[in-house]
């Protein structure tokens, strides 16, 4: 389940989690569009500042830099103040997504008192809630408790990949796909909804390998999920992925890859969405030629679950560079950013 060397390396890059950030303010709050009730609606997102994911005590996932936002000295009172602020922030929205740099259902991270305070406070305003959790906190007991507040809740779980080899040797998630299935079954028994997060293109994987892994993972998660969110890698600070990226040994996926995953999984039972963080930027999914249009089309297709415009755009686009990239990566035993390498190596040569 754990690749010790990988875990050690990821850990070595993590900064201290002692911070003097404001313990009473959430990391961030904003409104965005999502379709948690099956149709596009404005949704509030709040990232609570907590002590962070319990996995951080051991290591971290290779792409996860949310430990940069934690603060080890967050008390229940601090959390309550943050919850009040989140509540006040929700003026016109009735849908809330709560992120925590960890698991909202982990009582070490969000103690029972704060959890109860949250559920009670939000129940009068929030019509649909999404919280995130690792599989281990999705238990019957906790689900019954969540349900007791009567808030329609969807649990989001970071599956990343349905391939245990990828999870162990590339993501360092410290879990397995069967644990996800167990959690999914618990959710189903409790008639709770599930959003599965997948990671497109973990480190040490080729572009094509990443696409195939994501497509397979969508298919594997679909029977258990209400929707599946395909998250193309974005480079976060102090992560292994950032280290590799800085050395030119990692390139975030192409937007064309995101499109391919979406288009090739249209027939699965659950919704498949993607809101690429940092899309069309250096640290996020991007093509060789910068193009905001693709990002917009991906958002809209995801939001409306209508992929016709995206498909049309994709079919008409000139994808020769992308295709060459895929072919060339398959010629390599290890992965690196081919384009960035060639740019650097050809810099000092005669150009006619």
């Amino acid at each position, binding site marked *: 389940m754990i690749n010790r060397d990988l875990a050690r390396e990821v850990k070595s890059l993590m900064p201290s989690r002692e911070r003097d950030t404001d313990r009473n303010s959430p990391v961030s709050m904003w409104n965005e569009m999502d379709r948690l009730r099956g149709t596009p609606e404005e949704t509030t997102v709040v990232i609570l500042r907590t002590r962070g994911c319990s996995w951080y005590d051991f290591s971290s996932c290779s792409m996860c830099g949310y430990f940069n936002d934690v603060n080890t000295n967050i008390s229940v009172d601090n959390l309550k103040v943050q919850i009040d602020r989140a509540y006040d922030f929700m003026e016109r929205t009735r849908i809330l997504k709560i992120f925590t740099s960890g698991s909202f259902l982990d009582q070490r991270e969000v103690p029972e008192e704060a959890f109860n305070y949250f559920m009670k406070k939000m129940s009068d305003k929030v019509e649909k809630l999404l919280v995130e959790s690792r599989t281990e906190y999705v238990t019957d007991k906790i689900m019954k408790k969540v349900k007791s507040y009567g808030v329609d809740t969807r649990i989001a779980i970071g599956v990343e990949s349905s391939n245990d*080899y990828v999870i162990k040797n590339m993501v360092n998630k410290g879990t397995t796909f069967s644990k996800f299935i167990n959690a999914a079954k618990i959710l189903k028994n409790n008639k709770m909804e599930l959003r599965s997060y997948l990671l497109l293109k973990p480190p040490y994987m080729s572009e094509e*390998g990443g696409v195939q892994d994501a497509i397979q993972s969508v298919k594997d998660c679909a029977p258990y999920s209400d929707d599946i969110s395909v998250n193309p890698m974005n480079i976060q600070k102090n992560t292994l992925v950032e280290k590799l990226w800085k*050395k*030119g*040994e990692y390139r975030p996926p192409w937007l064309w890859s995101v499109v391919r995953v979406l288009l090739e999984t249209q027939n699965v039972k659950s919704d498949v969405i993607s809101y690429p963080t940092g899309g069309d930027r250096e640290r996020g999914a991007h093509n*060789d030629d910068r193009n905001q249009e693709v990002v917009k089309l991906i958002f809209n297709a995801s939001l409306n679950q209508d992929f016709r415009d995206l498909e049309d755009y994709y079919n008409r686009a000139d994808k*020769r*560079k992308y*295709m*060459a*990239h895929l*072919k*060339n990566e*398959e*010629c*390599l*035993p*290890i992965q*690196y950013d*081919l*384009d960035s*390498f*060639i740019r*650097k*190596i*050809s810099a*000092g*040569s*005669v*150009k*006619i």
Partner: protein
Amino acid sequence: MVIKSQSFFAYSRIGSYNHGESSYDFPFIVPVGSFIRNNDDLRFMDEECSIKNVNVRNREIKILETENFFIPMTTPFFLKRSKQTVNFIIDLKKEIGYEKLLYIPGVSDPYLIPHLFSLGVDAFDTINASVEGSHGVLYTMMGRLNNGMDHSPENAEFIHNIIFLIKNGVDSLTLMEMVERWNISSKGREILRILEESRGGDFEEVYPRTTGSVIAGGLESLERPDILRFNSYVTGDYKKSNDLETVLFLPCAARKPYSQSRSHQAIFEALGSLRKHINEVIVTSPITLVPRELEETYPPGFYDIPVTGNWFLEEKENIVNSIEMFIQNNQYKNVIFFLPEDMSFIKEKLNIDQNFIIWKKGESGEFDTLRETISEIVSRERDGQKRDFLKEKLVSIAQYQFGPWIKPFISGLRINRMFNQFMLVEGNKPYFVYNERLGKLTIHRNAAHIFVEQNRFLVEIDNFKPTANIYSMGVLNCTEDIRQEDEVVIHHGGEIRGTGISKMSHQIMLKTKKGIAVKVRN
């Protein structure tokens, strides 16, 4: 071990290897789709891969090992720093040896391939050709042309042509010329300089004694191992062949050997028998000084340089330093310079106030001052004895070729002319034959015992009778002085088995079991 045959130029090699029923030539271009991956399981060129850790410069490097290949599992970013490139590949080669081919995926920039080949990379690919091609870059012999069209196929063809040419560079021993000339990328030049400067010692150990050509084009040529060898010999171990106390420095000529040039012929005519009383030394670059008796050897008998009448500062400095050392080492009392105007920097740098005669070519009486100067010096001294120019030449060449140790074994030999060749003979037995075309001596079997006794230029073979070629498989040992293209003595346990020309440097001969180690002379 499935390399069938191979031949070398320094670290570079060409040859063929077997896999299954098929035979492949190298260096070669790895076909697209040669890696087949299934989670941790990887195959390359239809060969199973295993992972091996190798320590290179105190760093653990993961290497894929197959039946025929070593493939480092590193990204090619080391190419960004040329020093790292040179050190990494040379030190890696030291670890992995020559029994398998070295392939480094993704380094095949066409403007660096000859340089990487010089460092010992055996296999290349068209990954960069395809990436750049898809970005609209066309590789041309003058550099990268960007016209926005997809040029992947043309670029792959371009790589194929380079591979074809560098293969020929090994065969004809002209690879160094190619590397010096293939100058589109600054990285290429950096690699060459670092190889010759920082790793010059290692490079010299594998560099052939003679090559196919020395068209010394620029400052890099000053650091070429063959040039350096000659320069350091002339300013170091070289001793004049007689006890004459007068040296005359002359300019070089395009025609080699210089003696056959019109300008040198004119000097000979002008000086006549006065030449008996002086030693002549030719001043040039990048070879700085050539004593007349060594002018037929390699490299002075074979090089060419661009002549403009202008000298680089570094060349000037090299020439001046060499002259100083040369005069001192050989204890010349009288020093005469007869040089063109553009070499008067020597006069200034050495602070010479007399006997620096400017050669005004073509003017009437151009040799008068020179003749008078020499006559005056000669008349002050006793009349010189008879002088044997030929003997001086052969003994001097032998010392350059084999080392100063050989002098006592060769000075007593007599010169004989047989079958239009000059030989050094003992009684009636030929010891060394002078090969005029190559400016070197070949060892006759009769002289082989000298080498065995002195433990020089020896290749020890298994107990067999050598015929045309000795393969490295049959070599038990060899002396460290051996470089590719050296004259060597073949023996088994001290028992002489023949003589020949080495086709590998000692280091490689001992590290590989494939390829011709010595071409035997019959």
